[in-house]
């Protein structure tokens, strides 16, 4: 057993939380880009793209994130790609977030009245112009609450990366708890730090929503 004071534990955990934030950022940016591409493919080429994207989404929605992490972490080395735990977790979470965000955003795009498509079609707009200026801006407003909800989930899901040995907040918590034999206090602190990261997202979403509502 190691004697550690709170003034030593807290900074240690906070430093580890940086990695949680980094991993969340990678997953969210990667997932956002991935989901946008899936979405464009789906609506741009309804036949092939529609089927392919729905298969992708079902695969990732239908399997546990933990297994996806394992498959990337152990699978990529088998085809000759060396992965660090951060890379593996980044790739797996990006794929996972792409699938979920694509599905969330699809629902938002589908909720735009058909007349908006008809009108922009009838003005001769190409698919990309139509998406960029007519459909997506309207979808965005609807998409904020479910997107932020998922973002919060995603941030908490990065805890799973501790299992492939990525030294983020949860894993650091484990290390400290094992060393100090004070699991309740340590894990309590870990939970508080997660809360401190998620809460601002929820508040920010509410503010953004209100601002967009008054903007119309």
């Amino acid at each position: 057993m190691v004697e550690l004071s709170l003034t030593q534990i807290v900074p240690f955990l906070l430093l580890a939380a940086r990695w949680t934030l980094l991993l969340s950022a990678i997953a969210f940016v990667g997932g956002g880009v991935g989901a946008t591409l899936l979405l464009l493919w789906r609506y741009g080429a309804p036949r092939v793209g529609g089927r392919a994207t729905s298969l992708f989404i079902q695969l990732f929605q239908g399997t546990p994130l933990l297994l996806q992490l394992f498959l990337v972490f152990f699978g990529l080395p088998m085809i000759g790609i060396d992965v660090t735990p951060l890379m593996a977790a980044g790739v797996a979470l990006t794929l996972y977030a792409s699938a979920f965000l694509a599905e969330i955003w699809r629902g938002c795009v589908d909720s735009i009245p058909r007349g908006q498509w008809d009108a922009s079609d009838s003005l001769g707009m190409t698919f990309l112009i139509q998406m960029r200026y007519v459909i997506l801006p309207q979808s965005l407003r609807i998409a904020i609450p479910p997107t932020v909800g998922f973002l919060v989930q995603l941030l908490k899901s990065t805890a799973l990366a501790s299992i492939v040995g990525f030294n983020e907040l949860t894993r650091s918590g484990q290390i400290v708890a094992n060393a100090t034999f004070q699991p309740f206090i340590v894990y309590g602190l870990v939970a508080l730090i997660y809360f401190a990261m998620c809460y601002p997202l929820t508040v920010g979403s509410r503010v953004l929503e209100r601002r967009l509502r008054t903007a119309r």
Partner: protein
Amino acid sequence: MPLPPDAATPMIEMRHVNKWYGDFQVLKDISLSVSKGERVVICGPSGSGKSTAIRCINRLEQHQQGQIFVEGVELTDKVKNIEHVRREVGMVFQQFNLVPHLTILDNLTLAPRRVRKQSRKEAEARAMQYLERVKIAEQAHKYPSQLSGGQQQRVAIARSLCMEPHILLFDEPTSALDPEMIKEVLDVMVSLAEDHMTMICVTHEMGFARTVADKIVFMDHGQIIEMAPPQEFFTAPRNPRTQLFLSQVLSH
């Protein structure tokens, strides 16, 4: 590219067009020819396929058999042809379909700028000119939700005009409007008709049909039942179904 249409080429030609939704046949052997400057009104009971018929002309709906030519260009799966036709054919919808997050002016300039590649200045100047024409220029900086239905529909007409189309399609443009707003929209349509815009209107406004149409088409159950100039159509309809329809819409 298609050859430039000469005077003899009809603006729109539908030849034996058939269309099904699953097993249900919505259009049955539709043949219709519209020449330059001609004003055609399509009427008929609801569910008779009249909206579907005009939505085929700019390929918002696909036909399965027959041919449709717009200014000599055939509508097929070819995206190039579809985009070409859509740039030349404007459409006004029952529900206006303005873009809610853009101002009136931005609604009008969006397609000219992005599709026709006009500069902002040029597009805005033209937009203001068409807003004047539909008598609503003072609303240019408002959002669609701040306007009445009649005003929104006039904006929608101006938006179509900004693309300087050769043909305008109207799909029940006054059906979603309160009675007191119908006139302001019809006035705009009449003035377009007087300027010899080629137009096809699906409408229940028989007064409008009588005064501006060159030709009235009556549809029922996906078929064209009768096609005649207004004088003949209203005074001496030949088909019993036309007679029944007219007795219903004109009885009030």
